[in-house]
C-alpha cells in the first residue's frame, strides 16, 4: 500500500487552497512542480494485485515518471489514459521490467506483484515476466504456427508434454475468443491471420501461462473498429479472471471496458478512481477537461 495515503478531500483542498502561481495543476506539472495525485477512496477498498509506490524513472538525465502511486485492483480492468508522451506506456513497461532492455533507464521506487517486489535486488526478471502477460500496440505474433505461438511461454519453460500443450493451447485460445476461428488451422503460420485475429492470438499467448496480471499496451491502436470491438468484448470476458492493466488513447474505450481509470499527464498521475467517477464526476476540473476533450 502506498505510503502517502492522502484522502481526496485533503488533496482537493490542498491544491485549491495553496496559492500556486499556476492557473491549474496541468500548468504546475508542466513547470516541474511537484503535484500530488488525487486518488479516489474506492481504490483503497479493493484488493490489489499490483502496487506501485513512489515510482520515478529517468531516461538518461530526463525524468519520465514522477512519484507514481498506483494500486491495480485484483480481477478488474484498470485503464491508463492521458495525452501522448505522458508516460502511460513507460509505466506499463516498467511493470514487467521491459525497460531494462534500454540501457539508459534508471528507476527509483518500488512495485510489488502480489506482495513480491519487482525491483528488489536479486529478483529474477525472467521468472517475474512469466507471471505477467503483455500485449503490445502492434500485433506481434512470432513467425511460427498458431499452435507454437500460443504455447511459446510453455515451450521456453521446457514443457514437452504434447497433451498438456494442446490442452493449454485450446484453453488459451478459447479464453481469447479465437478458438472457433482457428481450431482447424492450428498448424498454419500465425502470420496468415488478420490483424484483429493476430492481436487476439497475442492475448491468448499472454494468458497461456496463467499470468497474475495482464498488461495491454494500446492493444487496439493498430486495428479497425470491428477488430477493436472484438478485443473489447474479449477484455470484458477476461474481467474477473485476470487483473488487467490497459493503456489506451481512446477515452470511449476506457469508459467502456475499464472498472478503474487513471489519468496521467507529463509523467505524473493526475487522478485515479473508478471509471464511472472519473468520467462523470471527476474530482478535478482538469480531469473533466481531459475526458470531455477540452485538452490533450
Amino acid at each position, binding site marked *: 500500500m502506498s505510503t502517502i495515503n492522502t484522502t481526496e478531500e485533503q488533496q482537493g483542498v490542498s491544491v485549491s487552497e495553496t496559492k500556486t502561481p499556476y492557473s491549474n495543476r496541468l500548468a504546475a506539472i508542466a513547470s516541474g512542480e511537484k503535484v500530488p495525485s488525487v486518488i479516489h477512496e474506492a481504490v483503497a477498498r479493493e484488493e490489489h494485485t499490483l502496487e506501485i509506490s513512489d515510482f520515478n524513472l529517468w531516461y538518461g538525465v530526463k525524468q519520465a515518471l514522477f512519484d507514481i502511486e498506483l494500486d491495480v485492483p485484483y480481477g478488474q480492468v484498470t485503464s491508463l489514459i492521458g495525452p501522448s508522451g505522458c508516460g502511460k506506456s513507460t509505466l506499463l513497461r516498467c511493470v514487467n521490467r521491459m525497460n531494462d532492455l534500454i540501457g539508459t533507464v534508471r528507476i527509483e521506487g518500488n512495485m510489488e506483484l502480489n506482495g513480491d517486489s519487482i525491483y528488489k535486488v536479486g529478483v529474477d526478471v525472467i521468472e517475474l515476466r512469466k507471471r505477467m502477460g503483455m500485449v503490445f500496440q502492434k500485433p506481434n505474433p512470432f513467425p511460427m504456427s498458431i499452435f507454437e505461438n500460443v504455447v511459446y*511461454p510453455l515451450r521456453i519453460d521446457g514443457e514437452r508434454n504434447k497433451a498438456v500443450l494442446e490442452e493449454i493451447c485450446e484453453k488459451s485460445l478459447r479464453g481469447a475468443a479465437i478458438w472457433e476461428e482457428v481450431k482447424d488451422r492450428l498448424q498454419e*503460420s500465425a502470420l496468415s491471420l488478420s*490483424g484483429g485475429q493476430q492481436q487476439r492470438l497475442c492475448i491468448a499467448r499472454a494468458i497461456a501461462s496463467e499470468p497474475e496480471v495482464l498488461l495491454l499496451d494500446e492493444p487496439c491502436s*493498430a486495428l479497425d473498429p470491428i477488430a477493436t470491438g472484438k478485443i473489447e468484448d474479449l477484455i470484458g470476458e477476461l474481467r474477473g479472471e485476470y487483473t488487467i492493466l490497459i493503456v489506451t488513447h481512446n477515452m470511449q474505450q476506457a469508459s467502456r471496458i475499464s472498472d478503474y481509470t487513471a489519468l496521467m499527464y507529463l509523467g505524473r498521475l493526475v487522478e485515479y478512481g473508478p471509471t464511472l467517477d472519473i468520467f462523470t464526476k471527476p474530482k478535478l476540473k482538469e480531469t473533466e477537461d481531459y475526458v470531455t476533450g477540452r485538452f490533450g
Partner: protein
Amino acid sequence: MSSEVDQVAGEQTRSGLAKPARPRMKHRSSSGMSMLAHGEPMVWLTGGALAACLLMIVGLLGAVLYFGMSTFVPLPIVQVELIDADPNDDQKRLVTGEITKEEVFDLSAESLLSEEYAVVNRVIEDTVKAIGDENIVANLPTLIENDSEFVRRDLVEAEEKLEYYNEWITTLERELEERIASATAGGRAIEARMAKIRASSDGEELEDYRASFQTFRGKRKALRAQLKGNEDAIAYFNGLTSNSENAATTRTGQPGEGSSEDEEEAETPDQPPSKLQPIFDAPRPAKVAAINALLREQAGMNGEKTVKARRRMFRTGNKSKEVNRPTFEWVADYQMVPGSEERPEWTIVAERMEYGRFYGVPRQFVLRHKRTIDTEEEDLASIIELFDMNLWRAGLDDEKNGEVLNSLEPLREELKSLRKKTIDEFFNGFSVTDNKSIEIVDEGGTVVPLANRDEAKNYVELREVWSTPEIAWAKFEQYHDEVRERLAERYSLKEHELGMVSKRRNDALKELRREELKIDAKLAPIYREKQILEDEMIALEKVGVSSDSDAYQKLSKRFDELTVEAQAIARQSVNLRGLAHDIKQYDDQIEIIDGLIRENDQLGKMAAKRFGEDSVAAGAALEIVKKLNEEKQIERKPPADKVAELRADLEKAPDYVAPTVERFFEVQREADLEDREINENIARITKENSRYLLICDTTTSPAPVTLSLDNIVRAYPANQIDKAEAVGVYGSRWWEFISDDPREANSEGGVLPAIWGTVIMTLIMSIAVAPFGVLAALYLREYAKAGVIVSVIRISISNLAGVPSIVFGVFGLGFFCTGVGSYIDGGPENASWPVLSEGRWFVILAVLAVVSCIAFTLSLSGRVRPGAHATATKRLLQNVSTFVWIAAVCIFAALIVMAPFFRGFYQADLPNPTFGKGGVLWASLTLALLTLPVVIVATEEALAAVPNSMREGSYGCGASKWQTIRNIVLPHALPGIMTGMILAMARGAGEVAPLMLVGAVKLAPELPIALADFSGSVGPIPTGPLHADRSFMHLGFHIYDLGFQSQDSEAARPMVFTTTLLLILIIAALNIGAIWLRNKLRKRFQSGQF
C-alpha cells in the same frame, strides 16, 4: 509552446512568399523548365544508365556464352594448295585443317619480303590488274615518284617532330642546369638538395622526350632510306625502259642483276613472258619500291590508305613424338594457288590422347592377329636355343659335340614341321577378299603379303588390311568403341587399383617410421644428458682437473650408466625404413635370380627326358644347366650377403619392433602379388588394344602415319557428317569436358577435377565461414553495448572486405600452411615456433591455473545480482576480471602453441609435409577469412531488420535473451543470413589470386574427395572420404593457367572461354541452390502484412 512558434513562423513564411509568387508562376510556364521540374529528362538519364549497365552485362555474358559454346563445334576441314617456290618438283604444298580464325591485314612490301618469289609476283600481278594500267612498266617511275611524294611528306612531319623535341630537350636541360647552379650558388645546402630532387623529377620528363626523339630519329632514317630506294628504283626502271626501247628488236635485253634472277628466267620460256616480267625480275630494292608504289596506287584508287589482304589460321595438328611441328598455320589468300581450296571428302579429324588433333585420310585399317604358340613348340624352341647358345659351356670334345648336334637335328625337324602345321592352320582361317588383303609378319618383323610366304620362315603375326578409306573408316567405327572400353578398364586398373596397393605399401612404411620415432623419442633425453655430461667433463679437463678426481669420476660413472641405459632401449638409433626398404630390394633381386635358376633346372630336366636319360645330349643339357646355374649363384651371392648384413643391422633394433617389421615384409609380399596380377591384366589389355591400327595419309608428312586405336579419343570425317552427327560430336566433346581428366597440358580433355575442386572448396568455405560470421555478428548486434570499440570493430570488419584478395592469400600461406599446417604435421618444432622447455611448460601451466582461479574469483565477486545497479567497485572488478580472463586465454594459447611434448600428427611423413603446404582445407579457410566480412555485415543487417516488437513479445513471454535469439531472432534473420552466405559463396568461388598461394595447382588428378579411400583425416579427426590436405584444381586457376601459362596458346584459348562459361554456370548453380534454400526459409518466416 513550440507549436505556437511554428505557427508564427509559418505565417511569416507565407506572408514573405506572397509577393514573389506571381513572377515565379510566370517563370514556371517555360516549357523546358517545366520538364526539368517534372523530372522527365531524369527518366532518360536513369534509364540510359540502366541500359548501359545491361548492355555491359549482357555483352559480357553473351561473349562468354558465344565463345564458350562455339569451342566444341565440329568445323569442316579445308585443304588448300600453296603456291610453290620450286615448280620443278612434283610435290604440292598442301595445308589441311580446320579454319579457326580469319583476319584482314595491311598488305605492304615489307610484309611480303619474307614470301616466296612466286607469291610476291602473284601479288604484283593482282595489284596491276586492280590498277588496270596497260603500260604499267613504263609508268612505274611516275608511280614511284608519287610514292616518294608521300614519303617526303612523312619525312617532313618526322623532321618537325624531331625539331620540336630537340627544342624541348635543350630548354629543359638549360633550365635544370641553371636551377642547380643558382641553388648551389646560394650556398644553402638544403635548397640545393631540394633543387636536385625537383630536378630529378624533371629529369624523368627529359628522359621521355629523349626517348621520343630517338624514335623519330629512327623513323627519319627509315624514311630517308625508303626515299633513296625509290630514287634508285626510278633510275633502274628508267634505265630499263630505255634499254628495252633500244633493244626492242632483240627482246633479250633483260638486265641480269643477280644470279637468282637468271635462274628464274631460265624457267619461263615455256610460257609467254608476262608484261610484268621486268618488275618480277627487278633487284630486290627496286622491286620493293615498285610494290610499295603499286600498292599505294591501288589503295589511292579505292580511296583507302592501304591495301588489305585476308589470311586465315588453319589448325593443322599432326604433332607427334618425332615431329614437333607448329599446330597452327596462317595462310594468306595470295599464298594459295587460285581455286585450290577444297573440302576433301575423306579427311578425318582424330582427337588423340597424346599430341592433340590429327588430320588425315584413312588409307588402311589393320587388324593384327598374333599366332598362339603352344607349349610344345615353345619347349622345343627353348631346348634348341639352350644348346645353340650354351653348348660351349658343357665343355665337350668335338666328337661329343657333333653327337649332341646330331641328336639335336630331329628336334629341329620336329620344330619345323610343328611350326608349319600350326602356321598353316592359322593362315587357313583367313582369306583375301575384294577389299581386304592379308599381310604376314615373321620373327624379324618383316612384313610381306600372304602370297609371298616363305615356307621356311617362322611367322608370328598375320595382318588383315582394309585399304580404301570407306572400309578403313567403317572398320574403325566397328572396333573403336570396344577399344575405348578396354582402355577405360585399363585406366581404372592403373589409377585406382595400383594406387591402392602402393598406398598400402606406404602405410606399412609409415608404421616403421613411427616405430623409429618412438625409439628416437626414448633415446633423445639420454643422448641429451650424455652430451651435457661430456661437455662438463671436457670443461673439467680444461681447467686442469685430473680424470682421477672424484668429480670427474662421478660424471664419467653417470655417463657409463646412461650408455648402458641407451643400449637397453636400442643398441643404436636404427634406420628401420632404410633397412627394410633395402632388404626388400635385395630380396626382389634374389627372387628374380632364383626364378631363372628354377627355369633352367626345369629346362635341363625336360631336355634330358626328351633325349633319353643316358644319352650324351642329356648329359650335356644337364651340364649346361649346372654351369648356367653356377653362374647365377655367383650373381646371387652379393645381394644375399647384403641381405644378411642388413638383417643383422635390423637385429640391433629393439625386439618389440620385430612384428612391425615382419608386417612390413608381409604387406610388401602381398602387394607384390597384387601388383603382378594387376600388371598382367594391364598388359593383356594393352596387347589386345595394340591389335588395331588405323593408317592415314596426311599432308604434313610424306609417309603414312599409323594411329593406334586406343590413342584416339574421338574421330569423325568432318566433311561428311550431317547435322545430327555434328550435334553428337559436339555433345560428346562437352561430356568429355565435364567428365574427364585433362590432357595435353590441360588444353584438351576435361576439367572434372577442377569442377570437383571448385565445388568442394566452396562448400568447405561456406561451412567454415557460416558459424564464425553468424556468431560474431550475433555478438556485435545482440550482446555488445554500443560504444567506440564496437564502432571501431564494425568499421574494421567492413574495411576488411576491401582488402585485396592476394593479401589474404599471403596470410593463408604464412599462417595456415607454414604455421598451423606445419604444427599439425610435426608440432611447434616443425613450424619453427618457439618451444618451451618441459620445466618451463609446467611452470606456465601452474601460472595458468592460478590466473584462471583469480579470474574466476574476480568474475564471481564482480557479479551484479539481477536488478541491482553495479557499483564502481563491482565495475572495476568486472573490468579487471575481463582482462585476467584474456590473459588466461593468451597463456593457454601459448601453452598449446609452444608445447614441448607435441610432435604433430603426421610426424611419420616428415619431411614430406601433409598439412604444411597448400591444400583444399587451407584454401577454404583462407577464402572463409576473405568472405567473413561479407557474412558478418549481411548477418548484422539481417539481425537489425528483425522488428523489435518480436524481441519484446518474446521477452514479455518470459523468454531469456538466448531463447529469444534462438527461437525468434535467428529464424527471422535466416533469409538475410542466407543472402550473405550467397554473396560470400559467389565471391569465394570466383576468387583465384589467393588460391595460387594456398593450394590450387595446375594438375591434380587426385580429387580432394575420394569415395574409394576413406582414410582422410585432419590431425586426430577422421574426415572419411574428404582428404583435406590434398592440393586441388580450381576452374578459376585453370582459366589462368590455360590463358597465360599454356605452351600452345592457340589451342588453349578456346578452352579459356569454355572453362569460363563452366565456372559461371557452376557459380550460378551454387547460387541458385542457395537462393532456393533462402526462398524456402523466407516463405516459412515471411513477416505478416496487416
